[in-house]
């Protein structure tokens, strides 16, 4: 059994926690306070908000949004590949082609299923 030195981690925690507390306290103490009706609105500009935030909305928004997030996240995998493109060589290129092909298959599937049809 070896003893592990955890003091740096504790210090890191203290610094992180301390910074948040300090920053929040200071803004509350020093920051200017203006409390008018406009300032207390949820959104200061744009269309006036109406009703409750907890209202039902069309499932279509949700489906489109989640599909967007899905494909957006997959694209992130391209970045590390692009950075290491030269080292990975032909093998990496083919691997990425396979990956994109599967991604396209998924895209074809959701189009064929009609998940993106608005009507």
């Amino acid at each position: 059994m070896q003893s592990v030195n955890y003091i740096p981690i504790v210090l890191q925690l203290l610094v992180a926690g301390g910074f948040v507390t300090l920053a929040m306290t200071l803004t509350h103490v020093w920051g200017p306070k203006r409390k008018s009706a406009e300032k207390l609105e949820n959104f200061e500009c744009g269309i006036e908000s109406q009703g409750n935030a907890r209202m039902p909305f069309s499932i279509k928004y949700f489906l489109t949004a989640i599909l967007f997030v899905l494909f957006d996240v997959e694209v992130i995998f391209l970045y590390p590949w692009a950075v290491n493109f030269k080292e990975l060589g032909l093998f990496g290129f083919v691997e990425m082609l396979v990956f994109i092909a599967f991604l396209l298959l998924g895209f074809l599937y959701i189009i064929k299923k009609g998940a993106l049809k608005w009507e």
Partner: protein
Amino acid sequence: MKSIVLLSLLGVTSMFAGVFNYRKLILPIILIGIAAAIGLFVDQWGMNKSFYQMAFFDNYAIAFSCLLLSVSFLIFTLALYHYRKEGDIVTDLYALFIFALTGGLLMTSFSNLVMLFLGIEILSIPLYVLAGSRRADLASNEAALKYFLMGAFATGFLLFGIALVYGASGTFDLAGIAAYVKAGKDIPDFFYVGIVLLIVALLFKVSAAPFHFWAPDVYQGSPVLVTTFMSTVVKIAAFAAFLRLFNYCFTPLASYYEIILTAAAVATLLIGNVTALYQQSVKRMLAYSGISHAGYLLIALVVMGASATSVVFFYSAAYAAASLVAFAVLTAVMENKEGRESFETFKGLAKNNPILALCMSVAMLSLAGIPPLAGFFGKYFLFATAIKDGYLWLVLVAIFNSLISLYYYLRVIINMYSSADDEVPAFTPNYALVLMLLLSLGANLALGFYPDLLMGLLG
């Protein structure tokens, strides 16, 4: 590796069957594909091929993979019967089943902790969807949500465990970790914590106490075919992964975690069997019976060593063969009686359809461990190995639990052979169901009469 690629492509093919209108063709394609995958695996027997140090196809991996594939083959035959009236959604469900199966195959053949993690995730995520695949049914939705939340937690434990093991040993590779453990110098405390976290995650996946609470609700809420898949393929894959990881890496440290596994095994046996006694639903009873069988398999894990692999393999095969018959009959009975699943629905089955009743009796007796059925030999080999390794008291506990389990298995049989309270609609014969029952019953009897078929395989 070829068969894993084949299965992934099969899953994609099945996914597109719905949109490109070859719906009618897809089940034969799937059955042929799975048979081909078994063939490709058998072809690799004894070759010990490694795939980029990520997957290692030794005989252990191939044997368990073939078992998983065969069980899935039978489940797809049952699907032919169960989903025959279902519409569009079916091809998507098949695709999910196949993807889950692919994950299961990775769990039997991993040689890197990353692959273990990937395998478990590929297995679990389609299952979360499958558990909720009866969308209009509240119980099915509840099952999916429960399974997902609990499963996500277990995944968290698994990742913590892997991270700690990596932190100490500096490698994800099983051989590297094994070498690190064998060298055995300066193993830090958190390595042991990592092992315990891995145990927690894997106990969850095999639904062993005290992490079994999700199993009855999920098994009961899910569609019956999904329940069949979960209690056979998923359980076997999880045990294969459990045994592979611990047998390969951590055996020199067995004295540290043995007590945990022993306690889990005893608790699983007692909780599974005693709770099964007062169930009203046969489906739920089968879920608890699955939990108790996980307890027996955990005993094999405690005993471990080279002999444990063949015992676990035989026991899982025997358990799967009996469970498949039980679930197939349950599917037929539930369909005939508008989805009811209590013990009373089995009343009058022997008069209405003596063959189904006979099949169910064989399955129940095999699960209870009555000779000369496969279940008996599974238990026999297990107990014999455990006694040889000096775990007599554990065997006594297990035998005591087998006696308890007789009550609820026989309760099904008694109900089947007593007269019905109401008019029972006649069964429409179906060739897929008959074929499936014949194959699994045949496997059960073959394993009972010739246990050497599988016992000798893994040495």
